């Protein structure tokens, strides 16, 4: 599999697996997602040095529960962002649970996959 961004050796980790049509949630800047909403921190800031894992810096964060995204929106750097829902096929890349939050996944995007096209309608919980 080829990757949307240059990845360091040993990245993604071998434990990372394709998503297989799973549903995930991510925060984006506007109601209509754009390509930039799927840029990793490394791609957004190409000259920054990261003193932790370069592999992690090239991954995108997603949650498998909408409440987790809604929680992150309470943080100052995320206020005003919009929650979107993604249905990710195996061609989307690979991902694995990372960090202390068991609902958080790091996603390494595969080359040629259009993440904007994977956005599916998110029914507000008040409408359910």
């Amino acid at each position, binding site marked *: 599999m080829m990757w949307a961004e240059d990845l360091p050796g040993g990245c993604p980790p071998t434990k990372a697996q394709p998503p297989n049509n799973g549903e995930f949630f991510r925060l984006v800047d506007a109601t209509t997602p754009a390509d930039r909403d799927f840029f990793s921190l490394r791609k957004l800031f190409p*000259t920054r040095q990261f003193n932790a894992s370069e592999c992690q810096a090239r991954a995108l*964060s997603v949650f498998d529960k909408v409440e987790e995204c809604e929680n992150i929106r309470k943080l*100052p750097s995320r206020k005003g962002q919009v929650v979107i829902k993604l249905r990710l096929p195996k061609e989307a890349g690979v991902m694995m649970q990372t960090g202390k939050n068991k609902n958080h996944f790091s996603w390494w995007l595969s080359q040629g996959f259009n993440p904007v096209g994977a956005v599916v309608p998110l029914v507000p919980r008040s409408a359910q």
Partner: protein
Amino acid sequence: MKQLTINQVLVYYDGPELVMGTDQVGTRHLGLLVGQDEAGGKYLAVPVSIETVLSLLAGTKDLRAIYEAPETGDWFQFTLKDDAGPVQLEAVIGGRPPEAWLPDQGFAIPYITGSDLLLRETTERASAIIHLSLEPPEARQDYRITVPHLVDALQRFQSLVKHAYTKATAATRAAGQAAAEATDSHGLDVFAVSEGSFTVHMQSRSQADLFGFVELERALSKLDAVVEKAGDPEATLVFLKENRGHFAAAYMRFLEFIIKNDSPIRYEWNAPDLPAPVRRKISRDQAGPLYKLLTEKKELTVETVQVVGKVIKANVPNRTFTIATEDGEEFPAIVDERSQLSVSGLVMDTQNYRFSCEERIEEVVGTGRERTRLYLLSYEAI
């Protein structure tokens, strides 16, 4: 000028959102991301006690409340330039942060705490923490353990962890990628003991990176994988055949301790990046059949290595010689007793050879330290 060394990420989303660090006098601070650009992430910081941090993680204290009214009444800001050095803390202009820098009420950090003490120690020390519980006969009625039992258990456990790390990272090294080989990667330090059998609290010598990952986790994951099969000797055998060598030998020595000292063991461990602690145990009833089966398979403990280099010293009557590799390392070796080879056949100093050796680990009697020796099986000139 106050400086902060960031040592933990508490909340991560695309990057560090909430971090923790300590200043030069050991005071903890929380740092909350409020913006970022090419220069780095901009953070709002407040000093906090460990009790406040643990209350935050347990959900009994709100993050907004911590930032609205910091314990010392001070707010600071810093830019995380990601160069691994300490960050400079500056006072917030105007004394109070703007509303846009504060989190909304109700932000939750949904950690699974498991043993609160384990979480506290993991958070305090920003390291992998292991609680190893021993239960030899003397510890069942009283909170004590004999010195030989304690020393033996800890040395065998450290040896097991060391060889688990070497085994876990072998594939990475074979792929040409750098792996941390220094003792810090698998070294353990004892920092406390507690009741509940006789429980030893250990921390990884290496600290977590900014994402909470500790190199020692590679070793502990390998250890978990074999110990979870403790109830199934055949499954253990299959696993150790794929992980033969020093790791298998160290595991058998650990089982031997359990049997010889009638001391079942339990351990639990956690690291800053894990969603939950890991728990394993081996009972005496499990250790017996395991040890019996594994010790019948002599080939499990054989570790073969290849060394390329020149011979720089040789002693024909003793069958010993020393190999010097291209990067300056020297390896003492001895011709294996089963081999018909002779040291006298080796050309000194000028000829490169590929030596195929059995690497044996021998304990230096009375010290608990391990010494590695190479036993020559075959060689070819290259």
